[in-house]
């Protein structure tokens, strides 16, 4: 029915998170019909993003400088470090606007079945960073799933006996729910009422 180019476009679009074949077709059609106002600017933006966006060497966030704007900001409290699983969690917490410290993105969670080990999450690097950079509070903002909680326990044990306050998000985050899907108000409350774990 379609030429190769269109088919490939639909295929790639339909594999984005949250999309499927049907929405892939709709998007492709939209882009192709409005080439000048949607497709070409998109190509340009994608090209620039691909060249400019880097992973922050300090926290794992994405930004256009080698160390991200959160890590370099002098307005942020460098004594508080919030550990999250994914960049999407960092973004969710930033949206909620309640947190003013810095972050560390693990890039996943401990899972024997998926073969994700402590080293894969840079946990040894994280522990060393905490030991050497004058941090006084670590917020373990991990998802209330089995893997999230196992990761929380693991990091907490690695930090045992250090002069630190270790907190987690307040309860009310439902088991199995993911931070990224919570509404901002719930997340704000969970951060405000964080408790020692």
């Amino acid at each position, binding site marked *: 029915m379609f030429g190769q180019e269109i088919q490939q476009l639909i295929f790639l679009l339909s594999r984005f998170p949250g999309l499927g074949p049907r929405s892939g077709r709709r998007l492709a059609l939209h882009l192709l019909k409005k080439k000048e106002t949607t497709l070409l600017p998109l190509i340009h933006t994608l090209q620039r993003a691909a060249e400019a966006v880097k992973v922050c060497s300090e926290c794992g966030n994405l930004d256009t400088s080698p160390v991200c704007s959160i890590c370099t900001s002098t307005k942020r409290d460098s004594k508080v470090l919030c550990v999250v699983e994914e960049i999407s969690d960092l973004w969710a917490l930033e949206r909620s606007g309640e947190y003013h410290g810095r972050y560390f993105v693990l890039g996943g969670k*401990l*899972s*024997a*079945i998926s073969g994700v*080990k*402590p080293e894969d999450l840079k946990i040894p690097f994280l522990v060393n960073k905490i030991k050497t950079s004058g941090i006084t509070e670590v917020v373990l903002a991990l998802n209330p799933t*089995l*893997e999230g*909680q*196992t990761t929380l*326990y*693991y990091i907490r*044990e*690695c930090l045992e006996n250090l002069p630190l306050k270790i907190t987690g998000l307040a309860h009310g985050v439902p*088991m*199995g729910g993911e931070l990224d899907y919570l509404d901002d108000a719930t997340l704000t409350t969970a951060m405000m009422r964080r408790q020692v774990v």
Partner: protein
Amino acid sequence: MPQTNGVVSLYLKDFRSYGELVLDTRAQIIVITGENGRGKTNLLEAVSLLSPSKGIRKAKTTDLPKFGSKSWGVSAGVLHSIHGDLQFGVGDLGEETPKKIIRMNGETLKTHQDIGKMITQLWLTPAMDRFVVDAPSGRREFIDHIGWTFNLEHATHISTYEHAMKERSKLLKDGVRDKIWLESLEKTIAQMGVAIVSWRETVLVLLKKIIAELLIPSGFPRFELNFEGDIETLIQNKSALEAEAFFQEKLGLSRELDAIKGGSSMGPHRSDLSFLFCPKNTPGYLCSTGEQKILILGLVLSSIKLLELKSQGVPLLLLDEVIAHLDPIYRRILFDQIKNLKVQTWMTGIDIKDFQDLRSHSIYFSP
């Protein structure tokens, strides 16, 4: 006829042996009779699909459309004590990939679990005849199903428990001996394990109360139910916290053994529900086929009553070919129970004459 919460109308379209069927089911008991192969069980199966499960036959959705058709549908008007009249539909529209969808009042439910909040079903089928003597997993699943129907946390506890156990087994199998990682998983396993066992005990206490207060006084033979297992023994004389600590310690000590054998030798996945048939003081597995049928019937009747009392959903009881094994005395006891249950009950059998005593509460249908 008294108005009962339950299915008030049923419509089948291209489902199994039925092309199209419309049934008025405004009665407490629906009796379906006819010779073998007439479609009695198919009808119960249609009702059983108004649930998050695959129904009484555990069938694949591709087996459900009438031969020659791709789509199928079952819809039902349901009277709910709180929500009033509800309309449910379950079926497959027959598109490229088979897909069961469930609708409530015209809207597709996001998760199939949601229908379980509105309708809670239990059934007894010939496939369950060996329930009392079969593998323990079936008995655990039965009680767990009752348990999470009115306490969703129980389901979370079970899935978290199983997940943590798999993670631990994988670490042990791969030779990973990261102490902190294993401890973290074992702590979760212990916490969830004790919570699971405690809730099962709670469910049993409630069932025993119903058995003693409702079943026995009306002539049902006395029987006992007990969960047996290490954690069960543990929580009898320890607090939950002590039991968790003890269980966790045991897990820590048995790593090398569990690495070889897989899983763990201790935990709620090893528990078993045992029966005792009191009139002869015989354990369930030594009972005759007929006596076993009484035991499972006693469990099912008390369970549906518990769900009627505790869950928000409309309770439905499906009994397929249940009276076949019962002598006249037990038939009468069963019929008395069903009449008293206040739960809509669907029954099948060969001969309509066998169901005469239910006349005042029933409507009859022969496919």
